[in-house]
């Protein structure tokens, strides 16, 4: 029992990062009909910014502290506190999302999603290549904004629930709650919902579709950056830190029905739990091979329910090429 509980707890922080990327994917997809395969890499770039804000100039920091790289963008003088660094990375992420929407995706138009997918894969490759080059010099460390020592935990029925996990979940919950409020209560949220339900109509009643989309992309990228920054303590910051996360998040977003943030959230924690429990209880499934089983489950789920669990007709309409 305690082992089972432990595995559930362990899944939670993974679930949080899957959820942040999955919800971001869903938001972007809902608004612009584009699956942002670079969502994870944008979060990775943001995590590097957090690491950059945290790092010392060479030779000044105490041993074992976040270190500066050898590249041009190795450090920025005095290290920022963790929360400020993560906040900085979130701001950077939002700017990145807005820029990508404005200068890469928007000029391609919305008639045909295929060029947009091409451009996004281009962004993916560009960021992957640049991150490896700009910040060469091993993994970076951000640290956790929450108490994350060995003793910072509750013991529940013999399982350890770390404060860090609780902090990540609470932060994510609060941000998602705030986003829901923004969507329901503010004018830009109303514009966003109008755009989702009827892009042509929204344009006709005078909504600035481009600006709303830009804000949507910025919020999505900021959410991804937040997820990346919060788990940077456990994942470490590397160019490929988001590769695995992206697969699970995509799977979660699809399972949740792509049009539905709640579905993406449920999907993310479902896959995180599945991953943790499969690895824990099935002897021939190790952490690397769990990815393969995730793919299998996804194919199965799509065969049984092509629209995902919470899918709507929007899912089908929007994905039509």
């Amino acid at each position: 029992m305690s082992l089972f509980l432990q595995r559930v707890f362990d899944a939670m922080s993974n679930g949080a990062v899957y959820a942040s990327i999955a919800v971001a994917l869903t938001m972007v997809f809902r608004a612009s009909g584009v699956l942002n395969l670079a969502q994870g890499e944008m979060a990775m770039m943001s995590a590097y910014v957090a690491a950059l804000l945290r790092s010392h100039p060479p030779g000044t920091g105490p041993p074992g502290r976040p270190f500066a790289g050898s590249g041009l963008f190795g450090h920025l003088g005095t290290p920022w506190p963790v929360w400020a660094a993560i906040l900085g990375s979130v701001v950077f992420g939002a700017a990145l999302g807005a820029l990508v929407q404005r200068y890469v995706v928007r000029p391609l138009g919305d008639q045909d999603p295929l060029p947009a997918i091409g451009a996004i894969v281009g962004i993916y490759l560009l960021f992957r290549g640049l991150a490896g080059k700009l910040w060469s010099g091993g993994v970076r460390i951000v640290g956790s904004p929450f108490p994350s020592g060995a003793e910072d935990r509750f013991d529940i029925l013999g399982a350890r629930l770390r404060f860090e996990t609780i902090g990540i979940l609470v932060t994510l919950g609060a941000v998602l709650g705030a986003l829901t409020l923004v969507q329901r209560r503010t004018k830009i949220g109303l514009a966003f919902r109008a755009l989702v339900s009827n892009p042509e109509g929204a344009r006709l009643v005078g909504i600035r579709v481009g600006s709303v989309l830009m804000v949507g992309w910025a919020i999505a990228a900021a959410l991804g950056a937040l997820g990346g920054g919060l788990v940077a303590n456990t994942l470490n910051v590397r160019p490929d830190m988001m590769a695995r996360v992206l697969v699970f998040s995509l799977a979660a977003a699809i399972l949740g029905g792509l049009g539905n943030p709640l579905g993406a959230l449920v999907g993310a924690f479902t896959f995180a739990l599945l991953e943790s429990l499969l690895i824990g209880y099935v002897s021939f499934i190790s952490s690397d091979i769990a990815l393969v089983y995730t793919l299998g489950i996804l194919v199965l789920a799509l065969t049984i329910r092509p629209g995902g669990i919470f899918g709507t007709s929007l899912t089908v309409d929007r994905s039509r090429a």
Partner: protein
Amino acid sequence: MTRAWQAAAIAVVLLVPAFGSPVFVLHATEIFVFMVAFAGLHVLTGRLGLISIGHGAFMGIGALASAHAVLDLGLPYLVTPLASAIAAAAFGALIAVPSLRLPGAYLALLTVAMAMALPILMIRIDGPLGVRIGEDLLPPTWTGLDEYQEEIWQYGLVVVGAAMVLGLASLILNGRFGRSLIAVRDEPIAAAAFGINVARTQVLGVAFACGLAGFAGGLLVFATPYVAGDRYTFELSLFMYALTIGFGAQRLWMSIPAALVLIMLPQLLIRFGWAPYQSVVYGLLLLVATRLAGSGEFVEVLRRRLKGASRPTSGSDLTEPDIVLLEV
């Protein structure tokens, strides 16, 4: 192609083993292998209007099937690319059936997941170093080659195999099946009204495309006699996708320059010390190609630009419609 071009092409193919160094011959062999794989992408993207961001994974499945056909079933080497094609086609159909129920981006997504999962799976099946096969792929005596010139024999095998398959693919694509693929892409409802089974045609098309990739994977085993997960990475799939977009998928023969660039670009970058920038180059290619050509043909747009003609309409009618926008 005119007769002169054909003669020149045949001359180049024959001159490579005569004058090239062993490494050069190996690269030339790989170019022919990837031509077949890019032909598969032509079918998928150009004919079916679908995208695959995991075509390298299907090559990997082909290579894996080839290795195990030799090691476990004892099949002779020369027929293994067929086994590879069948295995990859079956996998393609398996992925296509659920994903084509939701059109468009889903196939791309599932292929992404496959491309990420396959290297892991291959390492799991055969260990991190993979399996070695094809060590005894030595030239027979009638060729007059000695056993140290095996790369020339392998080059010959790959060229003949690739030529046969590309010829066959060209026949199929110009025939009834190829035209039904286009009909299904452009006007699925009209195609159905004319008695084409839309779903079956799409699944068969995907299987055909993946079968070509699998065949290429099988051929690659001739050129380099080991099969391991680290060859068919997600990056390889992304680069192949980038080249498909960059060179345009509408014409089968575009797979020739695409394969050339895929193999020669890393060599070129290494020479200038820019090897880490490979993915940056492909990323920029994708950004520029999609920006200039939209869903049109990048090479076509480039050609017209270079000739000084005006921009094609396909690019300009994709911009935002001219509706007066008011404040929210």
